[in-house]
């Protein structure tokens, strides 16, 4: 295997923490050939990032590494620090997940790119400048000769990731390690960045080690795949083999974890539960002492109607106003326009008159870490709504209801005296669902309830939501940027952009024949066309 560019041989990484040793990577071996793309796939905590960071010898000091990492036959683990610095940013370079924070905020981007050229090619600042402009042009930064003097805060997330790529490509590396480079970006931006990487790979003939949790990307992007789990390599092979004929059960589960199935349609004679007409929400932008002088309209005149038992999906990228719309419908935000719940107008109700309705319309938020008060036990969290809406309950009755709700979301009721920080992300999301469910609501607003979860956990939460809907005849408004989840759950879909609905229709119609260009772009970028 002399032609391997990078060979990872029995790599193990242990972290020596104050309360014991944690092994993050266990006896992992794989290799990359020149010019190929290898995807390292796994969920959080699988050790995929640790392995690649180990190849650059950039792990924190408390990490102990054993095994061998050979780059063109040279063992990097035993290379001198000086030798490593010759390789980093030169023969092997790296881009990261966090485009917003990976650039030095106090330095012009041109300077930061030029630094690599100065370091490895010995250019001086004047010689480097035209080369930097050329690089910026290659990664698709508009007006590169002006942008070269920008500071990072003047660029969007996608542009910053392009700058990172320019920096990584400056010395034409033989290997690019891309650690979740598109995870923090909107899907359409993600598609552009992936296309750019493909294009640059063809031009420079470099190999890419692509680390990701997103199987959709892997399928389209990688030549070969390695699947990692709990620090171990469970399966590897060509992309075709792994997706076509996964041998390991975990790989199969990951592939299956793509939400599938469709929702059974709801009878069109069912009455409307929630309707909105010309709903508008605006935020004050510039605050003067006495009144706002400028406004930003986040929701611009939206009409929407949901029948009993239906699930309406709202999709859109960050900043499209989808979450704002959801909060306005529940009267958690001030809005203008009409909102009707179960036939009566609720838009003008004051807090007191709104309160009895609150038990009928509930919400589950995105962030499983932010949506539970860290100072209350799970039991207290769940029973809080009961105290408001059923003051007649005594302690034992409340307790019984809490236990029932926890069982309903498949959590052990014995855990009700524990605090939220003692639970995992998926478990917390179940607790949030139990908090809503205990009030026996008719309508549930689900605001990205699965976006912060690993794919395999996501699937279990989606199954739960589905079962609950059937069992209790619930009506959902499901907000998500994840098209495949929406497709699996929703009857009808609204596509939002810049505070407006650009397209709506049944799930079937929208996914089969998106009419608007924006919707088509979203679909293409999210690779939903070929999933299940």
């Amino acid at each position: 295997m002399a032609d391997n560019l990078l060979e990872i041989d029995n790599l193990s990484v242990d972290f020596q923490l104050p309360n014991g040793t944690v092994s993050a990577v266990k006896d992992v071996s794989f290799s990359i050939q020149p010019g190929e793309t290898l995807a390292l796939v796994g969920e959080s905590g699988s050790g995929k990032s640790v392995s690649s960071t180990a190849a650059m010898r950039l792990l924190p000091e408390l990490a102990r590494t054993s095994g061998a990492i050979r780059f063109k036959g040279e063992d990097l683990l035993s290379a001198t620090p000086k030798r490593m610095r010759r390789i980093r940013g030169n023969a092997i370079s790296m881009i990261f997940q966090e485009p917003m924070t990976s650039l030095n905020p106090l330095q012009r981007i041109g300077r930061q790119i030029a630094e690599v050229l100065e370091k490895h090619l010995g250019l001086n600042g004047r010689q480097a400048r035209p080369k930097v402009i050329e690089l910026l042009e290659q990664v698709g930064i508009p007006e590169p000769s002006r942008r070269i003097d920008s500071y990072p805060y003047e660029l969007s997330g996608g542009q910053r990731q392009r700058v990172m790529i320019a920096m990584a490509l400056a010395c034409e590396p033989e290997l690019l390690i891309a650690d979740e480079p598109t995870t923090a970006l909107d899907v359409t931006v993600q598609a552009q960045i992936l296309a750019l990487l493909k294009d640059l790979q063809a031009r420079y003939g470099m190999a890419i080690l692509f680390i990701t949790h997103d199987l959709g990307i892997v399928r389209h992007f990688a030549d070969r795949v390695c699947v990692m789990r709990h620090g171990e390599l469970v399966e590897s092979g060509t992309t075709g083999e792994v997706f076509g004929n996964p041998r390991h059960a975990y790989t199969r589960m990951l592939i299956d974890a793509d939400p599938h199935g469709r929702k059974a349609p709801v009878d069109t004679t069912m009455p409307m539960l929630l309707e909105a007409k010309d709903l508008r929400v605006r935020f004050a932008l510039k605050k003067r002492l006495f009144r706002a002088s400028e406004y930003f309209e986040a929701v611009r005149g939206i009409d929407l109607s949901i029948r009993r038992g239906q699930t309406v999906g709202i999709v859109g990228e960050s900043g499209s106003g989808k979450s704002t719309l959801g909060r306005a419908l529940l009267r958690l935000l001030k809005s203008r326009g009409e909102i009707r719940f179960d036939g009566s107008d609720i838009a003008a109700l004051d807090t007191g008159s709104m309160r009895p309705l609150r038990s009928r319309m509930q919400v589950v938020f995105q962030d499983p870490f932010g949506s539970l008060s860290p100072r209350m036990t799970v039991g207290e969290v769940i029973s809080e709504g009961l105290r408001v809406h059923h003051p007649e309950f005594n302690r034992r009755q409340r307790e019984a209801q809490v236990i029932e709700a926890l069982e309903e979301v498949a959590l052990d009721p014995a855990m009700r005296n524990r605090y939220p920080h003692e639970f995992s992300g998926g478990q917390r999301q179940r607790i949030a669902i139990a908090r809503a469910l205990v009030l026996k609501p008719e309508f549930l607003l689900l605001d990205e309830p699965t976006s912060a979860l690993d794919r395999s956990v996501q699937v279990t939460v989606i199954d739960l939501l589905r079962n609950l809907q059937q069992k209790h005849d619930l009506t959902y408004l499901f907000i998500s940027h994840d098209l495949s989840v929406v497709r699996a759950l929703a009857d009808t879909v609204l596509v939002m952009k810049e505070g407006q609905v650009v397209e709506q229709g049944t799930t079937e119609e929208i996914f089969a024949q998106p009419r608007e260009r924006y919707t088509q772009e979203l679909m293409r970028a999210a690779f939903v066309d070929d999933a299940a």
Partner: protein
Amino acid sequence: MTTDTTSYSGHKLPPGSPNPPAEPDPVAGESLGQDAWRRLKQNKAAMVSLILLVLISAVCVAGPYLLPWGLAEVDWNAFSVAPTLENGHFLGTDANGRDLLTRTLYGGRVSLSVALVATFVSLVIGVLYGAISGYVGGRVDNLMMRFVDIMYSLPFMFLVILLMVVFGRNIFLIYAAIGAVEWLDMARIVRGQTLALKQREFIEAAHALGVRDRKIVTRHLIPNAIGPVIIYVTLTVPKVILLESFLSFLGLGVQEPLTSWGVLISAGTDMMQSAPWLLLVPSLFLAVTLFCLNFLGDGLRDALDPKTR
């Protein structure tokens, strides 16, 4: 982020997969407060400081009852005596024949009471001001914070000194004046916390449950803002003690017959060549107290700061 491998419905994990993370005792939960206390107990420096502080406070409160000398009692046989075990003046006497240990302990009472009362004053003003500003928000917040900005740019120490000069050296005035200076930071911290918490989803969820505003403040806002407030209080106490000593040193603090560590240090400075113990003893008490308070503050910050979590 935590991985969730223990799935409850649907997908079973393949056999032979590594164990899920060990589950703690499922019934008894550990609150953040208990968790912080456990971590604080592991911090030796902080615990030693805490014990020393309790000791110093206990000695200052109980000591004067146990010692044979009164605060202003003159021992006509012992003027400016160095520390000794022989005549019962363990830490010596001052030029007026008064027992230094007794006076230092009485001084400690004053210094510590100023610390507690003035910190409490700043806490009450700061928490109320900051919480109102942050919770009401908008225009009110804007005006209230402008006012704090202006207060910040005043040369406050000089105004306090002026106040002491004008209204005489009265311990209640000291409480009020120092409290009035120190509430600004507290107000800012509480306001920041309130604003940040207001954005958190669990507050939104409480609104969605129909929980009343008053309950949201008492059940959600205050318990969650309390960590940073505790940290800041432990940092305020040494600042207040220092301020009181500073005023006393300038001759603007408490008046005879009362004394405080700052007064004693000031008196000791005048005598330091002939009777250095008069400077060193109260200085040592003051420094050890401040040292312990700072250590404890650091320890509390490490134990309570969510960033280390």
